[in-house]
Every structure is written in structure tokens, then in C-alpha cells.
């Protein structure tokens, strides 16, 4: 439980900001505007992390999501210049709407109905603990994550290489 006028006001403000921005991703008719709304959602989530005293995760959220992923998405949009940018829905949009409403309509009553065992006083979760866990219990998944990142990096480079570059490389190898 989080008490105090400041945190409670911050919660409601962040909720309104995040959900309205997420709505903006849905309704904006320009793909660039949708990405800008998505950035606002990412920042709102970072604010939630701060409110939940996960300061390291808040910073990681800003750096990775706003700094890297949003920029990557913008790159993908400008690299596909002749694709339509109207952010339109497919014919299946009503089905998708039913799916979304069903998820929310099933989960929210379940959440409100459940008996959560919550703490009255919050535990301190310092970053040093997170680092110790990552390099202790979770060291194998941590290493696997670095392998995954390397593989994703190489895969992305291979996928976006232009056919011309590939031909040049093959020619060079044949000459050798």
C-alpha cells in the first residue's frame, strides 16, 4: 500500500498520462505521431517505476525504451518510405477490439476479487541487491541474454544488408 497525498496524486496523474497516451497510439492517424505517443507511454511507465521505488529500472526504461527502441522504430518508419503511414486498422479490427475488451473485462474483475497478500511496509530493494542476484542466482540467464543480444545484432545486420552489398562480397571472395 502506498500512502500520502503526493504519491497518490502521482499515481493518478501517471495513470491518466499513460493510458491517454496509449489511446493516442491507437487513434492517431499518423504513424510518427503514434511513435511520439508511445514515447510518452514509456516515460509514464518509468514514472511508475520511480513511484514503486525501482529507480534503476526507471533509468533503464528511459535509456533503453525511449533512447533505443523508440529511435529504432522511427528508423524503421523512415526506412520504409513508400509504405502507407496512415496507421490504419485491418478488416479484423472489430475482432481485435473484442479480444482487447475481453482481456480487460476478464482480468480486472479477477484482480479486484482476489485476496492479495500485500505488505503494509515496503521492503527496500537496493540496486546492489539486483546486481548480486543477476551475477549470483541468475548468472546463467544473464550470460544467455548476452548471447541472445549478439545473435540478434548479427541477425539484424544480415537481414538488412542490401542485395548489392551481398553480391559485392561474393565477388570479392571469388577473386581471392
Amino acid at each position, binding site marked *: 500500500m502506498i500512502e500520502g497525498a503526493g504519491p497518490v496524486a502521482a499515481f493518478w496523474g501517471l495513470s491518466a498520462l499513460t493510458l491517454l497516451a496509449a489511446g493516442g497510439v491507437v487513434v492517431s492517424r499518423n504513424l510518427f505521431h503514434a511513435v511520439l505517443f*508511445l514515447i510518452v507511454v514509456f516515460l509514464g511507465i518509468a514514472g511508475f517505476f520511480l513511484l514503486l521505488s*525501482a529507480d534503476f529500472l526507471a533509468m533503464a526504461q528511459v535509456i533503453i525504451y525511449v533512447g533505443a527502441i523508440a529511435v529504432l522504430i522511427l528508423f524503421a518508419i523512415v526506412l520504409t518510405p513508400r509504405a502507407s503511414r496512415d496507421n490504419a486498422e485491418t478488416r479484423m479490427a472489430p475482432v481485435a477490439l473484442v479480444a482487447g475488451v475481453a482481456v480487460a473485462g476478464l482480468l480486472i474483475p479477477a484482480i479486484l476479487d482476489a485476496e492479495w497478500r500485500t505488505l503494509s511496509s515496503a521492503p527496500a530493494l537496493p540496486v546492489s541487491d539486483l546486481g548480486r542476484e543477476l551475477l549470483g542466482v541468475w548468472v546463467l540467464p544473464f550470460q544467455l541474454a548476452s548471447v541472445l543480444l549478439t545473435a540478434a545484432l548479427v541477425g539484424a545486420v544480415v537481414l538488412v544488408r542490401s542485395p548489392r552489398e551481398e553480391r559485392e562480397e561474393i565477388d570479392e571472395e571469388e577473386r581471392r
Partner: protein
Amino acid sequence: MSVTLEHFLTVSTLLFAIGLFVALSKRNAVAVLMGVELMLNASNLALVAFARLAETSLAITGHVFVVFVITVAAAEVAVALALAVAVYRNRETVDVDKVTSLRA
């Protein structure tokens, strides 16, 4: 006035539902990816809320899990956007309705 775990989980669920709608309904492959990112963020919010507010001896594990989710999301978005660019190079479109060459 106070904010409880249920409040955070409700916001997370709403965000997830919006992300699901975006991922299922948008025509542009990049927009579909934005929906996936929304869903991942919603799950991260739920994980951090559980770590802070639920009664558990493994609270920091929630934070560890969020770190892994962010890592995998970064890897996934890089590969998916590379795929979108590769599809665009061959077909001049990233409309998921028009990329149907595997349809029987």
C-alpha cells in the same frame, strides 16, 4: 487515500488490453510491433508492482525478471524491424495484409 496493488494491476491490464488491440488490428507491421512493446511494458509494470507491494521473500526476483524482459524486448525489436525493412525491400510494402505469399 492510498494506492494498493490492485490499482497498479488494473492500470497494467488496461495497458495490456490496448497493446493487444494495437498488435492485432494495425495494418502496418511497425505499428503491430508498437502494440507488442505496449504489452511488454504492461507486464513489466505488473512485475515491479508485485515486487514492491506483494508479500514475498523473492521481491528482488521481480526486478531481475524486468531486466531480462527489457533485454529480450530490445533484441526482439531489432530483429523485427530488420525483418520489416527486408520485407519492404522485396515488396515495397509493410502492410501485414498484403504479405500473403505463404497463403495457400
